[in-house]
């Protein structure tokens, strides 16, 4: 068994990153480094109004006063922010009128990623806002959505076409003063998605954004803003991949969600950025701030499957401001080789009768480090708040680490806060049992891991769940201990 384990571990370490191809597309970039001039240039290239530039500069000036955060259970090499390219866009000479006009190379890239960009989307019922590097390439299904009054477009367009909504909501949930990377993002964000669901409207299809970092040496700083107006519903999907490179790339995104009274938002992420090679060289630094604000009776559910990135620093959170609002966080975070993840959530109970639920499943293999960090805060006015947290860790092999940092702050005596945690390993008995029934060790590990993560995977929309299951199996190929 031990020998087999070793072999499989080796195999796993050499298994290739499936999405590690580079697209040969002409890219327009600006020079490396960050300064007020660079920010002016970004704003100018995006033909932004003056007020947006002012916001960016304000954020930049604030960022200059901040120090890089170091509280996470991560070993982050020093990042030279002057060595990053802050803007890269696929070169396009004219506006696109139909799918046929999209650069064939770009289309091939999306095909390889398996994004249903064309007619098949109608069948899949998915509307895609595909973001390559910094510019939204093609937004589909907008007309169908427009009939219902739903706005789904790139952030750049939203700034130009819906300035009143952007002014009202952008930065209202994650202000630029929030943290180091939120400030950086506010200063240099290149593009992203904007989504507005009007009062009482149930979005008829799942909205999806697929991000991809393609150009070398560029950082990607998307900004996503979702506003679900009173009584509306939307399910939003986000998937990410990046080509393999030896150097590290920075990805610092901000996602803000405003969930108005009685609205319901479901946000699902499958993150598969390039994790670096088996020696830990290269890979994406994924520093993301995600937060949603729930008004009275609103509901927000985060589901994430994190398998990629060299370093992940991410805490999708819910601010339960309104009475009777509720938040959920379902997470599977898998690390392998030298990957590091410090991820979790914050549930901030401010309103009365607010409820939250946290289910976190960590899986560590190789020499990776995987930490869950969670905060449950019940403020003194949040009568009858309830939280249930469950944090499980699964270890594969004996060189990885799993860490849990749950924090609870209760200022109201009526609160009920529960926390459960387990740590387990895939046992040799389980593997032998599966083998004896004719399953290969590799299939057995995939099966056991998917079973372990089932509670979270069940939360994903169907097509995404299938992809996530495959992804877990691929990322773990043969890793046994």
């Amino acid at each position: 068994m031990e020998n087999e384990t070793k072999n499989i571990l080796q195999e796993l370490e050499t298994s290739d990153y499936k999405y590690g191809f580079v697209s040969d597309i002409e890219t327009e970039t600006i020079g490396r480094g960050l300064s007020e001039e660079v920010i002016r240039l970004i704003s100018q290239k995006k033909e932004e109004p003056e007020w947006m530039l002012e916001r960016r500069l304000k954020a930049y000036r604030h960022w200059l006063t901040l120090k890089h955060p170091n509280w996470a259970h991560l070993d982050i090499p020093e990042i030279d922010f002057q060595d990053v390219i802050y803007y890269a866009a696929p070169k396009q000479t004219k506006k696109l009128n139909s799918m046929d006009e999209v650069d064939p190379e770009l289309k091939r890239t999306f095909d390889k990623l398996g994004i249903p960009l064309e007619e098949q989307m109608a069948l899949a019922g998915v509307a895609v806002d595909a973001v390559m590097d910094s510019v939204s390439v093609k937004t589909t299904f907008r007309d169908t959505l427009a009939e219902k009054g739903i706005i789904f477009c790139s952030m750049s367009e939203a700034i130009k076409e819906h300035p009143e909504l952007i002014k009202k909501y952008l930065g209202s949930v994650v202000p630029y003063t929030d943290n180091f990377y939120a400030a950086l993002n506010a200063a240099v964000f290149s593009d992203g998605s904007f989504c507005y669901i009007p009062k009482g409207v149930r979005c008829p299809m799942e909205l999806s954004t697929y991000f991809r970092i393609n150009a070398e040496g560029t950082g990607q700083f998307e900004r996503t803003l979702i506003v679900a107006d009173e009584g509306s519903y939307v399910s939003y999907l986000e998937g990410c991949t990046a080509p393999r490179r030896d150097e590290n790339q920075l990805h610092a995104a901000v996602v803000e969600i405003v969930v108005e009274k009685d609205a319901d938002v479901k946000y699902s992420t499958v993150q598969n950025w390039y994790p670096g090679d088996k020696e830990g060289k290269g890979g994406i630094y994924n520093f993301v701030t995600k937060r949603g604000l729930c008004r009275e009776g609103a509901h927000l559910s985060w589901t994430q499957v994190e398998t990629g990135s060299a370093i992940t620093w991410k805490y999708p959170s819910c601010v339960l401001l309104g009475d009777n609002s509720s938040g959920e966080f379902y997470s599977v975070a898998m690390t392998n080789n030298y990957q590091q993840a410090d991820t979790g959530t914050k549930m901030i109970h401010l309103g009365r009768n607010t409820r939250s639920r946290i289910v976190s499943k960590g899986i560590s293999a190789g020499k990776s480090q995987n930490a869950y960090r969670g905060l449950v805060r019940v403020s003194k006015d949040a009568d009858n708040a309830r939280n249930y947290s469950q944090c499980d860790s699964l270890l594969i092999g004996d060189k990885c680490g799993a860490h849990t940092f749950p924090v609870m702050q209760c200022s109201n005596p009526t609160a009920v806060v529960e926390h459960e945690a387990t740590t387990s390993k895939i046992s040799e008995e389980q593997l032998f049992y599966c083998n004896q029934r004719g399953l290969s060790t590799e299939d057995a590990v995939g099966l056991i891991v998917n079973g372990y993560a089932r509670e979270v995977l069940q939360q994903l929309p169907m097509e995404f769940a299938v992809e996530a299951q495959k992804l877990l199996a691929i990322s773990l190929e043969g890793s046994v201990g």
Partner: protein
Amino acid sequence: MLKVENLCASVGDKQILKGINLEVKAGEVHAIMGPNGSGKSTLASVLAGNEKFTVTDGKVEYEGENLLELNVEERSRKGLFLGFQYPVEIPGVTMANFMKIAVNEQRKAQGLEPLTAAEYLKLMREKSAIVELDPKLTSRAVNEGFSGGEKKKNEIFQMAMLNPKLAILDETDSGLDIDALRIVATGVTRLKREDNATVVITHYQRLLDYIVPDYVHVLYKGRIIYTGDKSLALKLEKEGYDWLINDYKEE
């Protein structure tokens, strides 16, 4: 079908099997009995290919092949089934899904197409009836929260699904009440055919009331020290192992 010659196996430095000789032909039922710690479960594990044990000497021929060269899953796909004494739990993986993969792996090895969902469901219904397994159990996670009796029934259900040539049942009767014992044993008997064979490892004669063995072997300190017919089991039940062990020591 199975020919074991001078099989020796150890775990760490400890020698457990010290020269087992055993021949099982198609259509036969063999019972292996013996006091605790004599190596019964080890024999079952070694035949199934558990790498926790090292085979230090001997030969095992199975269906004309060198069994010891095959890994665990290959042995399974070639029709060797082990009914576990302590079936493990696999949280989050439904029994139905687990068995579907197992059945289709076996079919793949035989060059057959995987079963369609409808075919599979039909097979599952048919086979779960053999052991009176509550059909609801197949939609629950593998062995998770199963009672002792359900776990053992579930082992025989899996045996029925995989339709093995050689089934080795490791103390399938332990921890069963009399009703469950009857159901499990009847299930095994119903799966009996001319072209398959069963090796039953047990402590108690009572199982052999239902599963009538052609041979009863007594395993002691890593060796088969005595072989008889089904009357041997009755005698052991009455008189214990001492008379055999004393004879063996004198030899």
